């Protein structure tokens, strides 16, 4: 059986992922020209490489159409319901760091914690005639964190597919849930992260689709061991 690994198709993520596999003893080459979306591992006919976008990778692992993928934990947990039942996070790869955080306007001097935010959300309707709105592309993570961890039910999500940090100043939402690596974009937009508002500390991971056939496949075990061995 051929084992398929999905790797990011461009940018830093592609280079960093290839470098780790190189160190683990798998030299990855594209099939055909440089822009091709198919690749192989030199000397290994039993491993196939598919170059996909990061969000496609999380979807394909969820479907089980690929065996492994390298992608951000945030995308996997946002994209898949009950992610831990469907995939295994085999290794954290040490690059692509990004925290998914709850951020509010800096000038909300009275809001430092999720409990403060809960108070504000509860009174919001009475004071402003509508629910508190959150701009985010992380629907699932936001719902789990607000309702599941903090018992905050009364808010509305406003979908935001880009420039989320600008939403509070432009008035399209009150607060945001977004990724940040250094926090500088948040600061530039006069937003602050709540003290207990880190939803997920994400980084690139080697993720395996949970398939029964993997239990008896030596190549699957070999890849996991080899990647773990060079971290």
């Amino acid at each position, binding site marked *: 059986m051929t084992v398929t690994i999905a790797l990011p198709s461009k940018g830093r993520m592609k280079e960093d992922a290839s470098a780790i596999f190189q160190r683990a003893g798998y030299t990855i080459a594209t099939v055909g020209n440089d822009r091709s979306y198919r690749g192989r591992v030199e000397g290994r006919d039993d491993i196939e490489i598919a170059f996909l976008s990061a969000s496609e990778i999380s979807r394909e692992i969820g479907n089980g159409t690929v065996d492994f993928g390298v992608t951000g934990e945030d995308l996997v947990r946002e994209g898949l319901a009950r992610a831990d039942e469907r995939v295994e996070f085999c290794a954290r790869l040490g690059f692509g760091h990004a925290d998914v955080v709850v951020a509010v*306007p*800096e*000038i*909300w*001097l*009275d809001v*430092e914690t999720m*409990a*403060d935010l*809960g*108070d*504000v959300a*509860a009174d*919001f*309707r009475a*004071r*402003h005639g*509508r*629910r508190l709105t959150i701009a985010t592309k992380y*629907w*699932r993570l*936001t*719902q789990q964190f*607000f*309702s599941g961890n903090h*018992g905050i*039910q*009364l*808010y*509305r*999500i406003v979908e935001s597919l880009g420039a989320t940090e600008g939403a*509070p*100043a*432009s*008035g399209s939402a*009150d607060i945001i849930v977004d990724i940040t690596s250094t926090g500088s974009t948040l600061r530039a937009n*006069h937003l602050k992260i709540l*003290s207990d508002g880190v939803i997920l500390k994400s980084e690139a991971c080697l993720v395996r689709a949970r398939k029964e056939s993997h239990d008896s496949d030596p190549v699957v075990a070999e890849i996991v061991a080899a990647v773990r061995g060079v971290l």
Partner: protein
Amino acid sequence: MPLINLPAFAPDLLAAFERLETERVDTPVIQPAEPFLDIAGEDLRRRIFLTQSETGESLCLRPEFTIPVCLRHIETATGTPKRYAYLGEVFRQRREGGSEFYQAGIEDLGTRDFALADARAVADAMSVLMTLLPGRPLTVTMGDQAVFEAVVAALGLPVGWQKRLVRAFGEQSQLEALMLRLASPEHVTGLSPEIEALVKTGDDEALVAHIDGVMQATGYLTNASRAPKDIARRLKDKLALAGASLDAAKLDILREFLSLNVSLRYAPGVLDDFAASTGLPLDAAVQAFDARVAAFANAGVKLSDITWRAAFGRPLDYYTGLVFEITMRGDHRVLAGGGRFDRMMSLLGAADDIPAVGFSLWLDRIEHAIEEGARA
């Protein structure tokens, strides 16, 4: 047009609703999604079936009846009191069972005698279930948010903390976490020395002016939902809350209250003893509770069929008083659930304050119970 997948007992159900002198209403299956998400929260989004109109309006398949019935009442403006009955299909993903199923129920809008209306809702639900499941032993679990609110208020906590506790009522783990935090005072962190100094002077106008200035400078003012005075006011409230804590004795009282779980026959006595032994001023809440117990008896509900569980509630901001669930004795499946939702009508845009209480029946579970009974 009769639907062929209606439960076989639907005619009995409709006859029962008529006997109970309710007005049967229907609502469209396709509903605007906004009111459901606004009232019940974003959690509902994952479970309802959403689509969009050609013009981009969010629409959903009717996930329940209460909101559509209330909206219809507001639109038709036919005056209160009104008791509406409904029977129809709803669409919602559940942990157990299919995603399209029938629900029926009664919503009582605008009856001002709360005890009477509460008792009638429970009595009606019981009588309908007894018609459909003759001879099967039923049991009611009830809770009362008003009593919890009274206990929390009587403990002398600042209003901000009372609101937090009331909001978590019905979510045991949230409530536990809050009580743990209440055991020791918290300190406010994250304020710059400049703000701390400003707050200390007690000069509200200077604080508001400072916030206003920062918002101007950062371009937040034009679109801000929370005005400088909102932020300043809550900052002061928060600083007042920060020092608040409950001593161990009072926390024990709160825990003791939440552990109360008795037959409604004994509940007034137990509540009385609780008030007397703790010395909390709960007279008004106890009176309302006792009035409801008396109304239950008048409505012909057997008090021995009802258990009052002090911690039973639903953590949504439109529930205000009674909540109840009916199951068969020794079975966990809820056949009927209901409660008082006095805030719903104003949240949905009603001009007047309209108290409301109602219940809905889970027809697929009832059907299942009937089949089980037939096999036994």
